[in-house]
């Protein structure tokens, strides 16, 4: 495999990393921590996918205004991910629909996938981190 050859030449192997976000922002620290990890993975030039499932879809809901809860609004960071070559953003269709949301309600372009397709994508990863 080409991976082995790369390692033989001392070139670091690129792994497929997937971060699965399943929690709403602000109520817990998970969403913010996932963003930290995704930026680290990008710094190491890894193949990174970001997935939003269950309440995780709320992380990328448009129009977040956090002034009155005294927390940093980190939602603009999702729009900056493209600058770090992170362009694989996936949202589960079932999770969106259960919340009465559509792709238009999200602050960043994403690929909306059904559970079956998303499950297949998860299977293809080398590493899956859950948040």
């Amino acid at each position, binding site marked *: 495999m080409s991976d082995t050859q790369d390692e033989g030449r001392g070139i670091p192997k690129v792994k497929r990393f997937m971060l699965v976000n399943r*929690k*709403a*922002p*602000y*109520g*817990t620290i998970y969403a913010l921590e996932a963003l930290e990890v995704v930026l680290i993975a990008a710094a190491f030039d890894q193949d990174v996918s970001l997935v939003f499932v*269950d*309440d995780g879809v*709320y992380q990328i*809901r*448009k*129009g*977040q*205004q*956090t*002034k*009155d*809860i005294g*927390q940093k*609004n980190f*939602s603009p960071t999702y729009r900056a991910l493209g600058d770090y070559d992170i362009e694989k953003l996936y949202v589960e269709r079932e999770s969106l629909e*259960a*919340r*009465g949301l559509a792709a238009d309600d999200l602050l960043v372009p994403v690929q909306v996938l059904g559970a079956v397709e998303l499950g297949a994508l998860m299977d293809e990863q080398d590493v899956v981190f859950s948040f």
Partner: protein
Amino acid sequence: MAVLHTTNKSPMQTRDLESCLRLSRPGSGILLMEDAVYGALKETAAGTMLSKTTKDKRIYVLGPDLAARGFTPEEVVPGVEVVDYGGFVDLAVKYHHVQAWV
């Protein structure tokens, strides 16, 4: 005596809101705060469940937590009242005591 119940978790992650609705008595107030504000939204199962209880219980949702999460009062199910922090304090004073469902 009327009690103010508070809940702060998403109704899609825990069953706190269901337990609160089941065990709170008519005349109670229920305040949704932090991630629980998602429970007050239209087009969600929790919102539908809440809209059936607004006749015998007063339901409130904390506005700043709603705004932080990108939602407006217009997206809240009818019969649910949006309050600010001052309103929260008024409710805590008005009800006999506060019971938190954490």
